[in-house]
């Protein structure tokens, strides 16, 4: 893995092709390869696409400065995921007024061929799951982490992970069941 700062061409054309950017090549490769998956995790953690993109970029910017050290310790994905989770929690503390959960979902059309509204219902339901329960669900069932790994990232015990997961799952079921009952 390249640890020195090298001059590389912009990896994505059309957006910054005219710019000459200076990044660690290894970091750029990591972003190219893993950012899609990380973006989806961020979306599940925040239940907001725009906020998820901001969260991911802020997380990557944080780890960019320490990339050499992070990369030297092995796969940096777990580290980046941890940073992203902590960043999301801190953002939630700071932006507690920006997210307003609502129990009333928008009315659904009779036909939804693309399933967009179904997805929106899922997103709204997920948004109503408490953050730590949501994080436990995402780490356990989307990132396929073990209970121990999830506990390490969340900074809690395995038992807490189990209870948080169970409660979150029940909450999600309840929300989606309520939705389906309508």
């Amino acid at each position, binding site marked *: 893995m390249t640890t020195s700062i090298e001059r590389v061409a*912009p990896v994505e054309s059309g957006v910054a092709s005219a710019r000459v950017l200076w990044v660690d090549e290894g970091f750029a490769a990591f972003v190219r390869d893993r*950012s899609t998956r990380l973006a989806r995790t961020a979306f599940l953690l925040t239940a907001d*696409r725009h906020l998820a993109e901001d969260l991911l970029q802020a997380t*990557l*910017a944080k780890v*960019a400065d320490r990339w050499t050290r992070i990369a030297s310790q092995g796969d940096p994905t777990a580290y980046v995921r941890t940073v992203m989770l902590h960043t999301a929690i801190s953002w939630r503390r700071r932006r507690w007024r920006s997210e307003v959960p609502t129990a009333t979902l928008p009315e659904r059309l009779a036909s939804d061929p693309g399933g967009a509204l179904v*997805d929106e219902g899922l997103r709204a339901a997920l948004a109503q799951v408490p953050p730590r329960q949501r994080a436990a669900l995402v780490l356990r069932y989307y990132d396929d982490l073990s209970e121990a790994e999830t506990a390490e990232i969340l900074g809690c015990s395995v038992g807490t992970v189990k209870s948080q997961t169970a409660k979150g799952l029940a909450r999600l079921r309840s929300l989606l069941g309520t939705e389906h009952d309508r």
Partner: protein
Amino acid sequence: MNMEHHVNDLESNEFARDVLGRLAATMPDNPGRVAAVQRIVRRRRRRRVATRATLGLASAAGVGFVVVNGATRQPQTLPAASPTVPPGDSAPTAGVPDTVPVTSPDPCAVAKATTGPGDATSTLLDNQGRMKAAGTITAIDGERISVSVEQASIEISDVTATFAADTTYGDAGQPSSGRPQLGIGDPIAFSAVVQPDGSYVIDHLEAHMPDAVQTPEDATKPSAPPRGSDVTNPTFDGWIKVTGTITAVNGSTISVSVEQASIVATDVTATVSVSTTYRDAGQTSSTRPELAIGDRVAFSAVPQPDGSYLIDQLETHMTDIANPADTDPAGAAAKQKRALAECGSTTG
């Protein structure tokens, strides 16, 4: 039962994976993410550099402030000599353009006592960072001189000071409109104002002083003060001038508790001689007035080779000098008591 529970768990896991996977797939990809992250990184680095630079400047400013504060030493009174100091150990303050505060800790009192008409340096003893120094020039560089300080109102051994456009000069005891010829090794005395950056700007400089920075040999044969000069004015160089209260009279020798003097001393013992002239209550007296313990006297004296002082002119019962009773409550009370006593004797 266990099998049913396990099935429920699997169903729950599958349900969660299905919901989360389906929802995650709706997150669009961002082709400009790398560039965006790079912009953020660069912005963060610039901000960090700017913050460090700001902190550095603030730290430098803080250190500079401390240094300037440290360099801006206020004029301080010279330490008073011990009461038992022999007269010969009390060096005259020859050469300093004005009297360095000697025994009075009150700069206002000293300034008042040393203020004279036309004396440009007579009001220098204030608390505005002005210092006075006498010494020998060690270097001259255009508008700057370096001086090896022999005596100063602040604790300093070497000083570099700058001439200003409004610097006034004295040459050989006379006011000079221009800067005197200065050379390395010349004895000078000057007063200077401490600048915010710690440098010194000279506001008055005396050069080629007849009695400045005397050698020991010179000290034994000072030039005579003008007859009739005000011996209460301790600014004449080459002699010591003392104003104080007699604490002991032993034949021709008197000991005086110093109130004000041109030397650093709290007590001075001096001897009258046949050549001593006297003034009593402002009038010249051909005979030695009666001197008693507690009388206030002022005299000029010549240091002798053996360290004693020989009084050249002695004045007593003065009425035209600053009376400490004006500022000293105890003295005022004594004065009032004496006045009452005199009044009582007159009326009686």
